């Protein structure tokens, strides 16, 4: 309960930034806490909850029916200011949904961390517990896929 009071606003903002839907962001955060409280020894630290929200948002985007609805109804203003781009290209909801469908969970998490949370490679490495080199490789793969999806030549990684 204390974790909810403390972290729910930040987690809602994060989910809204990804899904660009207030209602779906509420569903995501609600789901995270319901699941959390059904476990015997729940983790309640902010980094863990932050990652849990990422994964739930990605699951929503991978669901075909949910994805179609989000694309039809999303509020782009909830994305917030963008300070990180992929080769100066904005990763909008449409592109994100395509990427989420093509990337595995590990790559998709890096995608969200870097392009939606504006995290550096070092921060992502700390959060996910893998090396910075691995994060760099995953970002390179993401950039290559973005180039492929938007039909442009790959830029420098």
């Amino acid at each position, binding site marked *: *309960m204390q974790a*909810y*009071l*403390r*972290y*729910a*606003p*930040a987690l*809602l*903002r*994060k989910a809204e*930034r990804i899904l660009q*839907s*207030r*209602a779906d962001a*509420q*569903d995501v*955060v*609600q789901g995270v*806490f*319901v699941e*959390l*409280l*059904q476990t*015997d020894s729940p983790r309640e630290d*902010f*980094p863990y909850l*932050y990652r849990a929200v990422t994964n739930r948002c990605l699951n929503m985007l991978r669901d075909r*029916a949910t994805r179609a*609805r989000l694309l039809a109804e999303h*509020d782009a203003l909830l994305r*917030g*200011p*963008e*300070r*990180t*781009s992929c080769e*100066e290209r*904005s990763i909008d909801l449409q592109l994100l949904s395509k990427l989420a469908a093509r990337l595995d969970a590990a790559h998709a998490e890096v995608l969200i*961390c870097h392009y*939606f*949370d*504006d*995290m*550096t490679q070092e*921060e992502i490495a700390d*959060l996910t517990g893998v090396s910075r080199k691995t994060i760099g490789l995953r970002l390179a793969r993401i950039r290559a896929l973005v180039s492929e999806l938007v039909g442009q030549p790959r830029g420098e990684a």
Partner: protein
Amino acid sequence: MTSCIGEPISYFRLERFALHELPADEQRSVAEHLAQCPSCRTCHERIQADGREQDLAALVAKLQDLRAPQPRAAGRARGWLWGTVALSLVGLLAVLSTQPPTQPMAPGGTTGTKGDGLALELTRVDEGGQQLEPTRFAPNDRFRIALSCPPALAGNVRVLAFQAGEKFEPLPGQTLASCGNRRMLVGAFRLDGGAPVDVCVLLGDADVTAVRSRDALPEPHVCASIEPVASEH
């Protein structure tokens, strides 16, 4: 895209900065960056101006009404207690986020009533607020349930929906710490499909494995029906 003077302060760090969860040296360096960088400062100001913290503070007072639930099994008592507290809190947040906290909940919605004091109100909610008196649903419309019940019926409740011969549970089972007038059940759900839906709330722990229609539900329960938009034509 807005330009940062250097490396953007991530939303993750900005949120932790706002929560005062960063180590002291990092807290200082973020503050220094924000003082110089309009781009990151804008993001930080959006966090500060969000206002949901005030909504949550208001929830604490409402939690005083929560009492220990009636667990399904002794070994699960602690889990259900915290689950109930958290579920209620989450539900209250959802309600508050769709209407100002000081404004009483608007009456209305598709209603099912029974003579024993049970009533179920189905209310459509969307990003613009609550839709009163919904008699029909479009695909993916989102609904919440307010349940009125006499005090003796407090305890475990399940939400069951019946559509075209199929039964499903649109919301997780939950525990009402107390019964009364218009208790909002936790969570929202979406309806889809081209057939009418009977949405029912069943109180107690009766086995409904074999139940396939609202008429076969054991007592006590209350149901409301809603039609798909397509059936208007």
